[in-house]
């Protein structure tokens, strides 16, 4: 009895693998690879340069221009994010963002939520192919010394 059942189990495994291989060979899986692109929007300072899956936001010179009682200098940037699936297929994706490298000299808020080294869900159901605009606020405390400012925000998209 045991032998028979073991045999059945082995056959089931073999069939499962064979079926999977057969499907892979007979019907090539659609290329559903994703890309993420950034689109420049409105900014009160600096400029954004998109390049492939990446983008460079250069704030240029950050200087207090407002009232002297402000504790920080805020720059606001509005930009679009689009998820594209190869072949033009639709669907939706989850977009997350996190502070990957960070000099600790400013705070970053995306759509009002603080960015940290932990992934932040930016959009739980982003429509593939559609541009969705987001707002990045960067607050530079007036208490820090002058000098360079740098951060890297990693974005990840995953299809549902």
């Amino acid at each position, binding site marked *: 009895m045991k032998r028979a059942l073991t045999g059945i189990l082995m056959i089931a495994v073999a*069939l499962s693998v064979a079926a999977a291989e057969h499907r892979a060979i007979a019907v090539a899986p659609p290329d559903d690879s994703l890309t993420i692109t950034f689109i420049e929007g409105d900014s009160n300072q600096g400029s954004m340069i998109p390049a492939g899956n990446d983008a460079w*936001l250069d704030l240029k010179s*950050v200087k207090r221009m407002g009232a002297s*009682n402000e504790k920080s200098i805020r720059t606001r940037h509005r930009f679009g994010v689009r998820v594209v699936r190869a072949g033009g297929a639709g669907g939706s994706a989850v977009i997350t*963002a996190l502070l990957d490298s960070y000099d600790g000299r400013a705070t970053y808020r995306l759509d009002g939520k603080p960015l940290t080294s932990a992934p932040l869900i930016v959009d739980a159901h982003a429509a593939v192919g559609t541009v969705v605009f987001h707002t990045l606020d960067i607050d530079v405390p*007036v208490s820090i010394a002058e000098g360079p*400012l740098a951060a890297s925000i990693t974005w990840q998209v995953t299809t549902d």
Partner: protein
Amino acid sequence: MKKIFAVVFVVAMGGFASIASAATSSGTLTVTGTVASSIDLTIESAGGTTSGTGTAAATSSLGSISKYGAAPTGFTLARGASDWTLSSNVGVKVAKANLTSTDYTLTAQLGSAPATGIVWKLNGSTLSDSAAATLTSTGTYASTSNYAWDIVVADSAAAAAIDNTINFSATSN
């Protein structure tokens, strides 16, 4: 027997699950910039009827002034043998941002030559339009400092407008 069938089911489902994996992709938004230091000077108060206090360009109107008339709002009037003096204060605040400096130097200079017989003084120093007078070389940031403001009018001065501008300049030390 039941256990073995359960294993068969899980293995078969595993075969399907491995086909339907989610696609992922990532991108990077790099942020760069340069924080620049700055200081900000504001006129917080002054004698006379003022406007623009709390900014860097305030205006003070004294109205019509005379030796034997009433002192303008916010001023006192002292009559001397051959002149008379209007006295008040000017409050100046200097704030800093992204600067390691601990104090500043504040100077003042008239925008134009004073009318004959009129002397403008700040903190005891006579102002001119040709050279800046140093009010302090150890100013404290983010704190309003009051400087004595005197306008001395000679009895011999012509009855005419005494309008002028005091230009303040703060430099971080």
